[in-house]
């Protein structure tokens, strides 16, 4: 049964105190599909629907949960190409295929109802519609489990991509700018995290010093960590880390932003199984515990966020997360912030002051030893720059590091707490995980 997304689950205000369900919710399993560059629009075994089913089955298998035990499905029902992809959400080839691939659902979009119908879930009582992206979905599921809305909840994030049409259609092909776009598009800003962050990034370099090219150390490290992530795009397609020369000579996009500052759109899906800490004790794999979740959606005060605004926003994100988890910067072992564009990650690193990094210090921190085997294993997941635009590597790596199952990426430092996110400086969410419930 599909229920509406109408319960109060967000922790999106300052000063909320320690999360009431701290340590009482756990992640007991995860599953990834293969990560392809694009779907070929022919093979249904590699469609977004097939990959999402595969990810769900893997997550349930890892947790030792049967399909009848699942009573919650939180699935983002918007492909990440967004409203500018192709002709909005009508992206799949026509005519459609035989059921269950007889609409956009299963091909370019996935929602809870399609999964219920296709996979045969019988006992789902929480399947909200209008679900946000994974940065907030994990918080929604955590709160739902903590509140008892459901007890065994799959969180699913599909990311679709097909040939040649990524965000080049829809409103980006329009001669007119409507709604909020009337204030940006006439001058060339079509929106997105790249535009949000590139101006603050330039102001950052002016204020604190350094060159854009100093980001190469971070980008290369993401690529290296990606090659240590067996399921990711880079590892499965042998995308070797770029050289400094490759980076400096690479194609400009929004100069100084280069192609290697941007993650690679992919066709993939991932699923996570959230449950109560109590139930997780009897499940098949080692659980990790949710110590806090938080969300934010800060309003722009004018057309373009500037550095002051971005720093204020990320300071507030950090304060909310640390307060809700009852932890501080020195307590965080694993730190996997969002890196979809390399130019934004320093704002999170400095806002959360991970390993003592203060405002203006990120570029010199990147130039030090941030490898997974070193003393400062920053973004051990490899993120999206190292694995493709799945937006899930940050979560999976955090779980694996706490379990001690990260393989060649396993850090040498303590790994008992992990912060992970898909978020921009203005909107998204954070998740704090712990090896122990307290």
């Amino acid at each position, binding site marked *: 049964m599909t229920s509406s997304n109408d319960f109060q689950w967000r922790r999106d205000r300052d000063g909320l105190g320690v999360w009431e369900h701290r340590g009482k919710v756990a992640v007991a399993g995860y599953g990834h599909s293969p990560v392809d560059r694009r779907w070929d629009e022919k093979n249904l075994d590699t469609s977004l629907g097939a990959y999402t089913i595969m990810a769900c089955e893997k997550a349930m298998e890892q947790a030792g949960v049967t399909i009848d035990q699942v009573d919650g499905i939180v699935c983002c029902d918007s492909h990440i190409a967004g409203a500018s992809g192709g002709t909005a959400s009508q992206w799949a080839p026509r005519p459609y295929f035989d059921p269950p691939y007889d609409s956009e659902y299963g091909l370019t979009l996935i929602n809870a109802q399609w999964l219920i119908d296709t996979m045969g879930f019988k006992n789902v009582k929480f399947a909200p519609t209008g679900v946000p992206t994974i940065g907030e979905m994990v918080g929604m599921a955590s709160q739902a489990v903590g509140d008892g809305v459901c007890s065994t909840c799959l969180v699913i994030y599909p990311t679709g991509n097909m040939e040649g049409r990524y965000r*080049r259609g829809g409103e*980006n092909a329009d001669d007119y700018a409507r709604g909020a776009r009337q204030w940006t598009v*006439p*001058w*060339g800003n079509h929106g997105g995290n790249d535009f949000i962050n590139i101006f603050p990034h330039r102001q950052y370099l002016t204020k604190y010093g350094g060159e854009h090219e100093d980001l190469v150390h971070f980008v290369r490290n993401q690529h290296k960590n990606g090659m240590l992530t067996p399921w990711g795009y880079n590892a499965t397609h042998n995308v070797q880390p770029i050289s400094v020369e490759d980076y400096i000579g690479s194609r400009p996009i*929004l100069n100084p932003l280069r192609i290697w500052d941007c993650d690679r759109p992919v066709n993939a899906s991932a699923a996570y199984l959230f449950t109560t800490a109590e139930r997780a004790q009897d499940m098949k794999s080692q659980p990790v515990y949710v110590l806090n979740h938080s969300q934010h959606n800060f309003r722009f005060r004018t057309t373009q966020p500037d550095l002051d605004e971005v720093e204020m926003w990320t300071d507030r994100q950090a304060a909310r997360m640390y307060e809700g988890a009852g932890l501080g910067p020195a307590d965080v072992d694993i730190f996997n912030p969002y890196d979809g564009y390399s130019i934004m990650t320093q704002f999170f690193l400095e806002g959360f002051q991970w390993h003592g990094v203060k405002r203006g210090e990120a570029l010199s921190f990147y130039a030090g030893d941030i490898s997974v085997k070193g003393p400062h294993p920053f973004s051990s997941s490899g993120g999206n720059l190292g694995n493709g635009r799945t937006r899930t590597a940050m979560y999976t790596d955090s779980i694996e590091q706490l379990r001690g199952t990260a393989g060649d990426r396993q850090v040498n430092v303590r790994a008992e707490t992990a912060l992970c996110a898909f978020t921009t400086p203005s909107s998204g969410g954070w998740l704090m995980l712990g090896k122990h419930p307290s």
Partner: protein
Amino acid sequence: MPKIIPVPDELSQPFWDAVNEQRLILQNCTACDKLQYPPQASCQACGSADGLEWTDVEGNGHIAAYIVIEDGRLNRRMLDQPYNLALVTLDQDPTVNFYSNLPGVPAYEVPVGAAVEVTFEEVAPGQLIHEWRVVE
């Protein structure tokens, strides 16, 4: 290539009407004396919805930063690439900012920190947009 054409809505119609008369007007909140752009239904600073009124502003600003769009996604601007996209702060209230392509300034030759003044550019018959030019 021509720029993309803004479509006024109920909230923005007074702004674009003024632009078409080559005037720059912004919302001003009488409750907290704060200028606001883009227009909103309520004041971003204090939340007041009743205190917003349109006011003419002096079209003077400075270039805070810029990028060069080399590979954007807007079909209508593809042939313009590469082109400057500058961030202009308003002198009357530097927390208010605008975008500008800085007409007449070659790509990559943007004088960051320079003074600019508002100008107006036709993007469709009868429809102007506000632009900014460097003050010599």
